[in-house]
């Protein structure tokens, strides 16, 4: 059912039609023919009916390599059991609340003072329902204190609770050498030895630790200037500016870029910092379905055709806000298509590369490098130093005029203290290492190691039968757990086997789709990964987590038969 652009234009306002055939003849530069893969075949508002969403692009002029993402659909029986689980938890929650009300059970949550009972309530019991009855039960999986460098292995402080996780006590022991599968340590720069740590220590002796001012006043060190030039060189853009906090980079700079009368088109699964920045700016926000380019195009064309809501005046600016890697899903943005759309409809693009900078691309320059695109096509490149560089803070990079404007108009620049010198030195050294400018090939090796580890880990988990979300190249690997009890069980069982993982549940994810999120690091050696994988497999068998219904290419039963068994039978 091929559609010509003429018929599509005639149906201007209709929902995007599902395209039945996968590939269409190319028309270079035309955004209409961007939707070539089955991923874009669904309508903007229809529910997904296919069993799985697997997208493999074969020959498409926009993509230089295959783009494989999969989000296997939740099996129905799992969804039903998960809902049943939540219902049981809710029933027990109400029961225990009743017991607490009758003072049979202890009450731990803050309550009104007796003399203020008639005032407007300060605490709403129902708002704490989830925290009291669901979160507290499995609270020991989060906020675990770490007492070493969060590298490939870490030390945890052992803690116990005698009142079912309401309070914790430290036993005094340290759990040593816990395999760290949760830190955003993609290139392994979280270390306390080596050239980065040494140069940072040296800088402390020269500059001290605090800066005691904002960038605009006296806090602009020559180290900051050096670091910003380095970042600009790393990314291949004209100019860059760094801020002390990654979250604040987004939430304080988006209001400086857009305001009332502008339109922000943001992805469904954008990070809270982007959502907060968008809401603070006062611009109109429209959300498009995650990574769905057809939906984005529909929104863009509608915005341009109809203009602002009541006055129908043209929008002052249209800003598309996407992320490089979405950390809850492990998916990578379809950047070539976004850039083609942006050029066609003349919108601006804000790319948040918090998780992808340093982790993707053969030179480690992020998702722009991964797709072999020109960084000058992206108007605002944003990223953080927390994940791949082992430091802290965020940056915004782009044209020189943009960055000069931000230096005087951004809240972070004017009011927040500047970055601490050792952190800045860590960024400079790690960036030089990745670029190879320090004369060694450590950076190159780490990038390769990360890519190998990612591919290996994903492949092995798939083969074992777990449901893994996301792109095949993303070092963030969400593994589905679904049921609320398994969230707590998985975290605890893995800790018993000396592996630390991050588990996430509702409301940070949707109700049914709770998950464990693994972050692979270049610091993980193959032995560490193998240990982790065998532990995950064991726990997965005990907890019955192997939900995948795909046929694996290497059937697991093939390993059961040794080669010489058949020879014995013949004799």
């Amino acid at each position, binding site marked *: 059912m091929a559609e010509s652009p003429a018929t599509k234009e005639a149906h201007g306002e209709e929902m995007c039609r599902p395209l039945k055939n996968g590939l269409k003849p190319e028309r270079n530069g035309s955004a209409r023919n961007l939707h070539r893969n089955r991923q874009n075949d669904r309508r903007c508002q229809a529910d997904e009916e296919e069993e799985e969403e697997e997208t493999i692009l074969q020959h498409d002029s926009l993509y230089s390599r295959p783009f494989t993402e999969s989000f296997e659909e939740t099996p129905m029986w799992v*969804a039903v059991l998960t809902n049943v689980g939540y*219902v049981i938890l809710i029933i027990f929650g109400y029961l225990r609340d009743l017991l607490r009300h009758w003072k049979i059970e202890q009450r731990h949550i803050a309550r009104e003072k007796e003399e203020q009972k008639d005032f407007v309530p300060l605490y*709403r019991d129902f708002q704490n329902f*989830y925290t009291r009855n669901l979160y507290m039960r499995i609270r020991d999986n989060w906020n675990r204190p770490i007492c070493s460098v969060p590298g490939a292995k870490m030390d945890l402080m052992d803690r116990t609770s005698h009142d079912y996780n309401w309070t914790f006590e430290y036993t005094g022991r340290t759990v040593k050498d816990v395999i760290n599968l949760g830190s955003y340590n993609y290139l392994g720069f979280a270390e306390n030895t080596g050239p980065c740590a040494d140069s940072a220590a040296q800088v402390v002796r020269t500059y001290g630790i605090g800066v005691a001012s904002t960038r605009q006043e006296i806090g602009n060190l020559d180290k900051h200037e050096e670091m910003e030039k380095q970042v600009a060189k790393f990314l291949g853009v004209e100019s860059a500016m760094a801020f002390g906090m990654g979250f604040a980079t987004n939430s304080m700079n988006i209001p400086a870029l857009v305001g009332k009368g502008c339109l922000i088109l943001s992805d469904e699964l954008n990070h809270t910092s982007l959502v907060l920045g968008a809401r603070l700016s006062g611009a109109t926000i429209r959300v498009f379905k995650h990574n769905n380019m057809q939906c984005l195009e529909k929104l863009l064309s509608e915005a341009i055709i109809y203009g602002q809501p009541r006055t129908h005046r043209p929008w002052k600016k249209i800003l598309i806000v996407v992320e490089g890697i979405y950390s809850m899903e492990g998916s990578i943005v379809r950047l070539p298509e976004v850039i083609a759309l942006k050029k066609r409809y003349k919108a601006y693009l804000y790319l948040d590369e918090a998780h992808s900078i340093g982790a993707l691309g053969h030179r480690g320059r992020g998702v722009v490098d991964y797709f072999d695109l020109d960084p000058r096509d992206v108007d605002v490149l944003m990223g953080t130093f927390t994940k791949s560089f082992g430091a802290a803070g965020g940056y915004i990079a782009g044209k020189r005029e943009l960055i000069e404007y931000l230096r005087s108009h951004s809240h972070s620049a004017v009011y927040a203290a500047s970055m601490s010198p050792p952190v800045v030195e860590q960024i400079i050294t790690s960036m030089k290492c990745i670029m190879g400018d320090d004369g060694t090939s450590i950076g190159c090796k780490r990038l390769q190691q990360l890519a190998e580890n990612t591919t290996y880990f994903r492949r092995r988990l798939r083969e074992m039968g777990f449901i893994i979300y996301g792109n095949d190249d993303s070092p963030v690997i969400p593994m589905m757990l679904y049921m609320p009890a398994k969230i707590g069980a998985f975290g605890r069982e893995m800790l018993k086997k000396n592996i630390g993982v991050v588990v996430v549940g509702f409301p*940070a*994810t*949707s*109700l049914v789709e709770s998950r464990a999120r693994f972050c692979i690091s270049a610091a993980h050696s193959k032995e560490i990964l193998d240990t982790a994988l065998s532990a995950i497999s064991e726990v997965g068998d005990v907890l019955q987590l192997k939900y995948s219904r795909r046929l694996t290419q290497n059937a697991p039963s093939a390993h059961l038969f040794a080669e010489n068994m058949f020879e014995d039978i013949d004799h």
Partner: protein
Amino acid sequence: MNVGTAHSEVNPNTRVMNSRGMWLSYTLSIGLLHHILLSIPFVSVPVVWTLTNMIHNLCMYLLLHTVKGTPFQTPDQGKARLLTHWEQMDYGVQFTASQRVSYLLTSFYTKYDRVHFVVNTVSLLTVLIPKLPQLHGVRIFGINKY
């Protein structure tokens, strides 16, 4: 524990009913309730149907139209604190459809007996009326205001 959401939607309550398997779980639980009631020996079949209808409507009224707010803190500064779940949801056409089906089935099985009819109709109305869009945010006699 205010981790916020990974989704742009700040109040996850609006999306709970759209989750996968919610509709099937709902239907299965009604079926289970009906079966349990059927296994009570001294209750006749028409009474069981009426009871199922009534209990279902009562539970739905309590959960969707009485309980207000969210069981967790949301980053939308408490906008949903005074809203019932029905008012928070963005759609719910399925639920009115299920009530109509249930009502029709019950009427059929009770053989249109007058007493049963009255009871069932009243029960249905208590659940259908709050769902009308004209009653969005309306609190009659100030009941359930805060």
